C-alpha cells in the first residue's frame, strides 16, 4: 500500500462516463482516477453497474457519454496495458489444459499462429506462477482446481503480460473466507511487487478494508470515490443512493444499511453492503 498523497502517475482516468443498456441508464456521470501502485475497491451491490464499468474501461462497452483514459492510450493499445480477470469464468474440467498452459496464453494468446516454446516463455510462466503461489498445482488441469486456485491461475494469466492496470470482476464471489483472504493478501502483495494498479469489484467491503487505498462506491449508477473514511459516510452515501442511508461500524467492520425506497412497503432495510 502506498500513501495516496505521494506523487504518482495517473494510470486510469474515468471522466463523466455514462452508459445506457437498452434504454436503462446503468452508469450515470461516473468519474474517478486511479494512480500507479494503488489498490482500489469497486464496491456496490449486484446490479449497481460494476461489470458494465469494468467493460467500459476495457473498451468492450460503448459509452453514451464521457471518456476513459488508460495512460492516454487508444483502445487497441489499451488491451496490452490492462490485465483482466472476468467474473465467473467456468473452466471446463474436460479441457486438457494445465494451469501453466493457461498462464502462457496470457503472454501471446491474442496472436495468430501456434505457440512457440522458448526458454524465455517458460521462465516468464514460472516466475509469475511463483509470484501468485501457484507452483504446486501448475501441472494440474485448470478445470479440476478449487475456486481459489483457479483465481490464482487467472490472476497469473492476467499479470504475465506485465499490465499497468489489473481489473478483477468479483474475484471473491463464491470463495470461502479462507481462500478469499488469501486472494486479497496476494493482490495487495502483487500491487507492490509487480508495480501494478488494482481495481477490484466486490459487493462486500469488509474483506478489502485492510488493503484498499481507495474506494469507488457505485449505487444507482452513480459513483463516489476517495478513501474509505471519505466515502463510507452517512451523508456521502445518502446523497449517492438518493435516500437515507445508515453506516454502522461494529468491531472494526463497516455495514452500509440502505432503507427501502418506498418506505411504506413495510421493509425496514432493503440491503446491507457490509
Amino acid at each position, binding site marked *: 500500500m502506498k500513501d495516496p498523497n505521494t506523487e504518482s502517475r495517473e494510470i486510469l482516468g474515468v471522466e463523466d462516463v455514462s452508459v445506457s443498456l437498452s434504454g436503462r441508464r446503468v452508469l450515470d456521470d461516473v468519474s474517478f482516477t486511479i494512480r500507479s501502485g494503488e489498490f482500489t475497491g469497486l464496491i456496490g*451491490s*449486484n*446490479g449497481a453497474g460494476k461489470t458494465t464499468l469494468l467493460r467500459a474501461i*476495457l473498451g*468492450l462497452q460503448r459509452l453514451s457519454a464521457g471518456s476513459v483514459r488508460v495512460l492516454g492510450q487508444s483502445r*487497441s493499445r489499451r*488491451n*496490452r496495458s*490492462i490485465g*483482466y480477470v*472476468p*467474473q465467473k*469464468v467456468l*473452466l*471446463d*474440467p*474436460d*479441457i*486438457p*489444459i*494445465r494451469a501453466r*498452459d*493457461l498462464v502462457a*496464453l496470457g503472454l*501471446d*494468446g*491474442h*496472436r*495468430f*499462429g*501456434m*505457440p512457440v516454446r522458448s526458454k524465455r516463455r517458460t521462465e516468464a510462466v514460472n516466475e509469475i506462477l511463483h509470484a501468485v503461489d501457484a507452483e*504446486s*498445482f501448475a*501441472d*494440474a*488441469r*485448470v478445470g*479440476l*482446481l*478449487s475456486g*481459489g*486456485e483457479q483465481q490464482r491461475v*487467472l490472476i497469473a*494469466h492476467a499479470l504475465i503480460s506485465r499490465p499497468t492496470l489489473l481489473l478483477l470482476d468479483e474475484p471473491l464471489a463464491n470463495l*470461502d*473466507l*479462507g*481462500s*478469499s483472504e488469501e486472494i486479497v493478501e496476494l493482490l495487495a502483495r502483487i500491487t507492490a511487487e509487480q508495480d501494478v494498479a488494482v481495481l477490484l469489484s466486490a*459487493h*462486500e467491503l*469488509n*474483506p478489502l478494508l485492510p488493503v484498499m487505498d481507495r474506494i469507488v462506491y457505485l449505487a444507482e449508477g452513480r459513483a463516489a470515490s476517495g478513501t474509505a473514511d471519505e466515502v463510507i459516510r452517512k451523508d456521502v452515501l445518502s446523497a449517492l443512493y438518493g435516500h437515507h442511508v445508515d453506516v454502522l461500524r461494529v468491531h472494526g467492520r463497516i*455495514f452500509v444499511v440502505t432503507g427501502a425506497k418506498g418506505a411504506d412497503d413495510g421493509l425496514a432495510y*432493503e*440491503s*446491507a*453492503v*457490509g
Partner: protein
Amino acid sequence: MRPLLSWIFEPGFFSSDPVHVAFVIGGAAAVVSAIVGVFTVLRGQSFAGHALADVSTAGGSGAVLIGINPLLGFVGFGIIGAGVMDGIGVQRVRGRDLATGIVLGASIGLAALFLYLDTTSGGTTGATQQILFGSIFTIDPATIPVVIVFSLISIGIIATVYRPLLLSSVSNEIAAARGVSLRLVGLLFMVALAVAVGLSALTIGAILSTALLIGPAATALRVTKRLWSAFLVACVLGVGCTWIGVLLAYDSYYWGSSHLGVPVSFLVVALIFVLYLASGLPIFRTRRRTSATQKFSGEPLRARSQSLIDSTEDPRG
C-alpha cells in the same frame, strides 16, 4: 505367419486400387477430422458440426444432380452453411441452438429434394446411398489431389488461429478483453469445420460424418492430460478406425459364401463407438487431481462457518 497374414489381409488387398484410394482419402479425412474435432468438442460445437453435415448432404446430392464431384458439393455448401450459421449468431449461446436448428432443417429439406431428383430424373440410382452413407471404394482417384488441398486448407486455418481459438475456447470474455476478434476467429473455425465435415462426408457418408469428427476427439480428450497428446491420440484413433474399417469391409466380402460384404461406413462408425465406450473404463480415467493440489482443498471448517456470518447477502440478488 503367412497363413495368418493372408487370413487378415484377404487376397488382393494390397494390390487393389480402390483400397489405395480409400486409404489415402480416409486417412486424410480422419486426420483433419481429429484435429478440428478436438476444438469442436472443446468449444461445445458438436451440434453445429452435425448441422454442417446436413448442409453437406444437400451439397453432395446437388453436386450429383449437376454432375460434378460430390466433394465440391459437400465442402462448397458446408462453407456457405458456416457463413449462414455465423450470420444467425452461432457464436452466442442462445444463437447457437437457433442457427443450428434452422440451418439443419432447411438443408435436410433441400437434400430431400435433390436426392428425389437424383433418383428419379438422373441415371444415378445409387446417389442416396453414396451421399448419405458413403462409398469409399468407388471414389475416383482423381479426387485425391482435391482432398489433399482441402485438408491443407482446414489444418492451415486451425494452425493460423490456434492461440486465439484456444483462448476463446477457454473463455470468450478473457479473449475479447485481450483484443481477440471472436467473430473472425469463430468464423474461420466454422470454415475449417465445414471442410473437415465435407472430407468426412466423402469418407463415411454425409449423415455419418459427425461420427468421425466427434468420436476420436471425444475419446482422446477423455484419456489424455495434455492438449497436444489429445490431438495425437485423436489422429491415431481416427486413422486407425478408418483403415481397419476399410480392411474389414474388404475382407467381409470373403466372409460366408454369399459375398455380400459389410459397408465400410458401418464398420468405421462401429469401431469409433466401441472405442469411445472403452475410454470410459476405469483404467483410462485421467480426471484425477495431482497429489500436490490437495494442499488447498482441505479448507478448515472454522472458515466455512464464519463466512456464513460474514455474508450480508443483498436481497436484490
